[in-house]
């Protein structure tokens, strides 16, 4: 299977009054064509920064690309000029943002916002664009699309707005769709509708999806591959089955243990991960998870673990996986 986008050793920093925050520190992963890949992690782990870097949406300054490359169909995104990016954004890559309440322009009708990209990238005239937009609205499940076309965002509910966002991002039939927490702001019954919709659209249009989320449930239900991020680095990656059934990194294991299972007894206490994530202003040279890890060893404090192969496409960045580590039972 060919890859649509490959991130290699990406590093991004932010310059703040307090100093340089190393938000992303050498992240590598790839998205196979036609598949759904999830980046999972807690707030501040760098998952959204990675996603935004993939479309060059970070404003520099305060952000600074410190290194690495992002190969989209073999070309490095980070070397593109702003003008070249404009042709790619919305056209070859679409993005769905987290908050449907604030990411639509309240002063423009949704019809205008959907057709904007089509008229720019696909040279549609007004009439063609309107017909296409109405079809898209129908596709994403908005009733009475002809009337809805001329309405403003405030006339839509949260779930409906997220559908409009999806329609906008699909307007130019992008090869890659980056969805940054697309359902976090929505209710569970609406979340189920949106996830089902994304899946259906992927089957129909063959779009590759990069899903950014913190919800492991959403990941298990929709994704083929999982990339787990912590404090700006990838700690584990593999197929969804592998990650959920055979997690190797103590952080991934901790995440899985801290959510209640449906069969869990109430008397059983949850097993949270103690402490909180490290300060990325001055990251330690060792494993970022060292301070919170139950299985931390001496080597973890000062030496960053190498990415070790587990099996198949499953990799874990942990000294416990090192061939010379003692077997832990």
């Amino acid at each position, binding site marked *: 299977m060919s890859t649509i986008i490959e991130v290699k050793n990406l590093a991004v920093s932010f310059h703040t009054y307090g100093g340089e925050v190393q938000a992303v520190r050498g992240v590598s992963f790839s998205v196979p064509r036609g598949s759904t890949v999830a980046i999972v992690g807690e707030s501040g782990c760098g998952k959204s920064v990675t996603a935004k870097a993939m479309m060059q949406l970070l404003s520099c300054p305060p952000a600074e690309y410190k290194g690495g490359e992002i190969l989209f169909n073999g070309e490095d995104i980070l070397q593109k000029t702003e003008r070249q990016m404009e042709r790619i954004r919305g056209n070859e890559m679409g993005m769905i943002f987290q908050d449907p309440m604030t990411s639509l322009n309240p002063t423009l009708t949704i019809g205008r916002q959907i057709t904007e990209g089509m008229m720019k990238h696909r040279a549609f005239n007004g009439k063609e664009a309107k017909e296409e937009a109405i079809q898209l609205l129908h596709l994403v499940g908005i009733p009475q699309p002809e009337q809805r076309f001329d309405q403003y965002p405030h006339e839509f509910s949260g779930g409906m707005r997220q559908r409009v966002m999806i329609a906008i991002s699909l307007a130019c039939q992008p090869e890659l769709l980056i969805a940054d927490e697309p359902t976090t702001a929505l*209710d*569970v019954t609406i979340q*189920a509708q949106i996830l089902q919709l994304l899946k259906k659209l992927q089957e129909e249009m063959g779009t590759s999806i990069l899903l950014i989320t913190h919800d492991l449930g959403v990941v*298990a239900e929709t994704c083929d591959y999982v990339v787990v991020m912590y404090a700006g680095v990838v700690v584990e990656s593999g197929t969804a089955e592998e990650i959920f059934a055979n997690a190797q990194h103590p952080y991934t294991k901790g995440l899985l243990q801290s*959510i209640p299972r449906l069969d869990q007894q*109430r008397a059983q206490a949850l*097993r*949270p991960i103690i402490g909180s994530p490290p300060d990325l202003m001055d990251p330690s040279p060792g494993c970022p998870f060292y301070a919170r890890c139950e299985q931390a060893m001496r080597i973890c404090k000062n030496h960053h673990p190498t990415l070790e192969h587990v099996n198949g496409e499953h990799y874990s960045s942990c000294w416990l996986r090192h061939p010379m580590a003692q077997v832990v039972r």
Partner: protein
Amino acid sequence: MTIDAQPFMQVKGLKKYYNVQNQTLKAVDNISLDISEGETVGLVGESGCGKSTVGRAMIRLNEPTGGELVFKGEDMLKMRGNRLKQLRREVQMIFQDPYASLNPRMAVEDIVAEGLDIHHLAKGKKRKERVLELLDLVGLDEEHRNRYPHEFSGGQRQRIGIARALAVNPKFIVCDEPISALDVSIQAQIVNLLKSLQQRMGLTYLFIAHDLSMVKYISDRILVMYLGNRIELASSEALHAKPLHPYTQALLSSIPIPDPNFKKRERIVVSGDVPSPLHPPSGCVFRTRCPRVMDKCQEKVPEWKEVQSNHFVACHLYE
């Protein structure tokens, strides 16, 4: 009659209506619920279903339009003056957003001690001792007391909010989505903290949430609401093992399960959106989205019935 025979907290036919553009918006319509001492009741529903309004009414943060609130045998809505002030010590609240619910210009010590100051419970050295005791109780360090909210992470802020609620030794705490703004690994920390505090101090909780898996884990009983109405009430085990109302069934089946092998299960996805509470559907409020809707649902409001022992539901399927 002794105090013990009384339910700890009784909600009888609670109503809260708002006037919106000369129309009546029924945010909460006829909710009844008994809570025993030491119990945790979960209150679940989608945004706008009135769950927070119920929680706020139960500690008199808003004045209900109708209905009764009986706290330890005493009519809460008749409390005035000193008795009301006394009530504020017995009932407390933990808020959803730990970023918005702490005053950014107050140091942690003053935030936690605000209740102590208002009720003249401790001064000087005793006040400091009490603050340190509370910080220790919620798992914060002594040195944190002179810091300001912006210096803390979300989970730590929520701990400050919990310490503030505990300062006046309350009996009943309304937890309004206390974990939904937190990261997964931190959520479990806060839930475990709330559980251990309950055991140690004999607290009673109303736990408001939209995350059913966490609610199941912390609650003894769960009440499901939809558009201001009660839908189903049962023990947390019964509700998850055998949900009766189609809405509860849909809610439960919408939770994404963190296990890829679960993918194949049959999922009930309800279509459409929650209708506007200004124009609720006639009959059963859920009928516009219900997969098992019948003719009867449009005409008649379903009765609240005990279908199995201690398992209540409002649905025409069970008549």
